[in-house]
Each structure stands twice: as structure tokens, then as C-alpha cells.
């Protein structure tokens, strides 16, 4: 019985370890990317150890179930962290938290001017090695994010093709 519960909860236990290790490593190393990877890998190791101890006849199936659950849960955790790092909406919420008198629209537009937004994203993409400068212009250095562009575009066409058609029609009209 305990074995069954252990196997069932192993992805959650691995996630808790992932989160704790991320917290410890960020405060030691001050590097967000590295701390996320450390948390993920250590959580993965813990899941593997638990599987080796608890699983018997259906080791491959248990591995599959556990790792897919762990990866999906880790993705949710990473997405939660990523909202703080990249989301404009979350930034606006946190800025408004400091301002009990609220903020005017033009002040918000000033804080988050198009140039400011582009600059932040360019710096982030350059630091991550996704883009680089060549003869004073920006070129792609890595195709990893491009894969995400293609996947989301494919899914967008699949799920809301009419929206895509409307956008194409509007683009033609312009």
C-alpha cells in the first residue's frame, strides 16, 4: 500500500524537491536560468531514485507516468516563474501594488513605451543567446525559440483558422 502511494506521489515529491532546490540555488548563485535547471535535474534524480526503490513489475510504465507528470508539473512551475520575469501584465500589477493612488494611463504608457519593451526583450534574447548583432543588425543565433513560433502558429491555425483568415483578409485590405 505504501509502495503504491509512494509511486503515486513521486512526481509531487520530485516537484517539491525541484522548487526547494531552485529557491536555494537562486539565493546562492543569483542566476535564475541555472537555478531552474538545477531544480529540474535534482527533482528528476529524486523521482528516479523513488522509482528504483518502489517500482517492481511495471517499471517502464511507472517511469513513463511519473516522468510525464513531473515534467508537466515542472513546466507549470516554470511558467509561473516566467510570468514574473517576462509578463507585462504581472509587472503592471506589481507596479500598481506600490501605488495606492493608482496610475494614469499616460504614466503607464510612459513606463512601458514600445522602445522600453523592445529594449528589454532584445537584451533578454541576446543574453540567452537567441539573437546576435551582425553589422549593426539583429540576426537569429539559435533556432530553439523559432520551433516554439512554428508550433504555436500551427496550433493557432488548427484551433482558430477563421481568426487567421480574418487577419489575412485585413492584411490584404491594408
Amino acid at each position, binding site marked *: 500500500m505504501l509502495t503504491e502511494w509512494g509511486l503515486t506521489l513521486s512526481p509531487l515529491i520530485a516537484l517539491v524537491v525541484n522548487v526547494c532546490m531552485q529557491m536555494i540555488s537562486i539565493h546562492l548563485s543569483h542566476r535564475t536560468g541555472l537555478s531552474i535547471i538545477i531544480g529540474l535535474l535534482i527533482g528528476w534524480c529524486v523521482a528516479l531514485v523513488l522509482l528504483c526503490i518502489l517500482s517492481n513489475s511495471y517499471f517502464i510504465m511507472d517511469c513513463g507516468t511519473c516522468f510525464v*507528470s513531473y515534467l508537466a508539473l515542472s513546466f507549470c512551475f516554470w511558467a509561473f516563474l516566467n510570468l514574473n520575469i*517576462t509578463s507585462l501584465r504581472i509587472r503592471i500589477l506589481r507596479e500598481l501594488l506600490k501605488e495606492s493612488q493608482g496610475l494614469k494611463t499616460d504614466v503607464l504608457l510612459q513606463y512601458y513605451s514600445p522602445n522600453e519593451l523592445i529594449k528589454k526583450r532584445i537584451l533578454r534574447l541576446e543574453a540567452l543567446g537567441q539573437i546576435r548583432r551582425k553589422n*549593426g543588425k539583429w540576426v537569429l543565433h539559435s533556432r530553439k525559440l523559432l520551433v516554439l513560433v512554428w508550433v504555436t502558429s500551427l496550433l493557432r491555425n488548427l484551433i482558430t483558422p477563421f481568426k487567421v483568415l480574418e487577419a489575412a483578409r485585413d492584411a490584404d485590405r491594408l
Partner: protein
Amino acid sequence: MILFTAVALLFFAFMTHIVWWRVKRPAHTTSALLLLFIGFFIIAISALSLSFIEVMRLGLLYISCALSYIILYSAIEQQSPTLAMIHYIDLHGEKGCDDESLAHSLCTKSEIMKRLTLMEQSDWLLQKNMRWYLTKKGRRLAYLFDYAAKLFGLKIGG
């Protein structure tokens, strides 16, 4: 069996999602997706004779994958500025593109207004006398993310 059941459930839920969105896209897409995925899960556990532990295992696997998709859906529904930039730079190939054309083609004043309007519709913000304020819901979210930022050592982004 749990893995196959979860994969099958996710597949059928996703197919239903595609058909539903093509017929009539719901106004509140996140709530609709949550309802859809949870609905399929409830139907599955009612129809299959699973033990409590099997339901827990299936639930953990299925719900975590469903939540991952719902998170990804926000990037599918509306292309993020970062991905739009990557796509735009890629279109220029090895010639590259300069800062001005990148800024001109991508982010405009309307991006911020779009986000403020979406946040107002989601009851995170309200506008009063030309000023924006947090609602109770918005304040709770802001505290959550602020606390998470301190706990996980994250700098303010955006």
C-alpha cells in the same frame, strides 16, 4: 494502463476543444478549457472502474498535462511580443533587421492598451477618473507574484 488512459483522455479533450473553438470560440477561454478538461476527467472516472490510487495517479498525470496545455494556450491565442520578434528577425534571414524597424513593426501603444483592457475585463484592474487601480482580485494576484518574486529571487520583469 494509467498512461494510456491519460493520453486517450487528453486526445479526446483536445479534439473536442478544436471542434468547440471552430464552432464558436467561448468568451472566457481559460474557464472553458478548465471546464472541458475537468469534465472529461469526471466522465472518465465515472465510466472506468478504478481504485482510489489509480484515480489519484490518473488525476495527477492528466491534470498536470491539461494545465500545461492551458498555460501554452495563452501563447497560442495571442502571440507574445518575444515570439513575434523572433519570427520577424527570422523573416530577415542573414541580412538582419535594425532596432527601428523591429520596434516599428512590433510593439505599439495599442499593446499596452490591449493588456490594460484585458486586465479590466478579467476584473484585475478598474479605471476611475482616468486612473487605474487594482481590484481585490488584482491585489491578491499582485501580492502572490510579489511574494513569489522574493521567495524565488526574481527581478521585476515585463
